[in-house]
């Protein structure tokens, strides 16, 4: 098994104490890895360490054996693409968002290539989420880091995105997906569980 990421004794502090603490885990290079746990356990926080939107306050995150902080951050982010819960569309058309290879990329994520000339903010949420994936794939990443990629979608578009994620993982990309849905975790080849830290007051980080 080739290791893509390793979390070593990671602690990340929030405003009211640590969000995650003493966290160890390994993400293999092959297939789909699900990060599961109840909301508030720090799953999103861990995902944000992979492309350095956040840095740990203690411990290290290794990418292919090297501390993520040793990479040029922009090159790291090109290789480790992250897509958020709610798709973000930039002003302009789908083509403006995705770039040169738009038709082929749209096809790859299961969208009609004719959508290339559509204004991006007129896509449905499901279409926008697929477009966001296409925009990430345009950078030819090695890793896709997905944060609850179906949480903003209705049931009918959920299944389609899940199949797409599975396909992308099978095509050789490392896919890391945060989910709180145990059923969705069953899609994964391996599961990393995040346990919530005991808190003095429940719900203090719900914001």
């Amino acid at each position, binding site marked *: 098994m080739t290791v893509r990421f390793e979390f070593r004794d990671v602690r990340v502090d929030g405003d009211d104490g640590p969000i995650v603490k003493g966290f160890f885990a390994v993400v293999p290079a092959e297939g789909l890895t699900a990060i599961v746990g109840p909301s508030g*356990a*720090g799953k999103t926080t861990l995902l944000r360490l992979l492309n350095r939107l956040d840095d740990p306050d203690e411990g290290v995150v290794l990418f292919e054996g090297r501390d993520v902080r040793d990479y040029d951050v*922009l090159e790291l*982010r090109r290789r480790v693409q992250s897509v958020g819960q709610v798709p973000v569309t930039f002003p302009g058309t789908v083509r403006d968002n995705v770039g040169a290879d738009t038709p082929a990329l749209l096809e790859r994520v299961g969208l009609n290539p004719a959508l290339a000339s559509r204004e991006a903010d007129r896509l449905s949420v499901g279409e926008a989420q697929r477009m966001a994936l296409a925009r990430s794939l345009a950078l030819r990443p090695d890793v896709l880091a997905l944060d609850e990629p179906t949480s903003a979608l209705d049931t009918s578009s959920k299944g389609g995105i899940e199949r797409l994620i599975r396909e992308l993982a099978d095509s050789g990309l490392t896919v890391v997906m945060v989910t709180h849905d145990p059923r969705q975790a069953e899609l994964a080849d391996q599961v990393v569980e995040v346990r919530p830290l005991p808190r003095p007051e429940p719900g203090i980080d719900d914001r």
Partner: protein
Amino acid sequence: MIAIGAVTAGGAPLSGPISFGDVALSLVLVAVAVVVSRWQRVGLEKDMAVATFRSFAQLVAVGYILDYIFKGHGALTIVAVAVMVGTASLTSAGRARRVPGSKLVAAAAISVATAGTLGVLAALRIVPVSARAIIPLGSMIITAAMNTTSLVMTRLHDDLAASRREVEARLSLAQSSRQAALPWLRASLRSGMIPTIDQTKVVGLVALPGAMTGMILAGASPILAIRLQLVVMYMLLGGNAFAALIAGQLTVRRLFTPSHQLIKSLRRTPG
């Protein structure tokens, strides 16, 4: 070159110097304001008293200081301008307290805007390099640059905070912090520069601005007064552009880490 503080012309200027007695008489109008405040129970009497007293003390002091500087102590001009820049920087920084290092950002923006604009005016020999020209013109630039700087800093901070999802989506696509912030940087520069542009557009139609009114009250011909006013407006346009540009660039730097991350206070605290 515009002759500053010369000239008399036709019409009926003020019939002589205003005495401190005249100033005391004008307190009648403050009394009116106090009566209104009492009567309508607005509760601003104390504020008015403080404002009246402060304005009196500040302006009397400034009057004597300027008089001293103008009478053969021109070297102090630089000190006067520096004090004004310092005060303006602290005021502006106080408005944008959530921007880390806001004092340095404001000081850089306001001092470069002031030095640059005054430098151009002096180099092109549009105004003389004398205390009588530099101090009042400087104060106008500094005031305008202060407002612009506050506006740009707060707008950029608040916009990036409100749009952090989109900003982080851009960063995630391997854009540098500068690229990622660009749409909001542009918006903040616009918001910093538009008020001056609009003011310049309507000058004379809506308001007779300060420099011009001052010269006319002092007895100068309106034709001379407008020339000074035009220079002042163009100077403010330039000064504000300088201030907005520098404040914007430096604020962006302060709101991201060197690793192209939003600073901690702007990141969401996720679950």
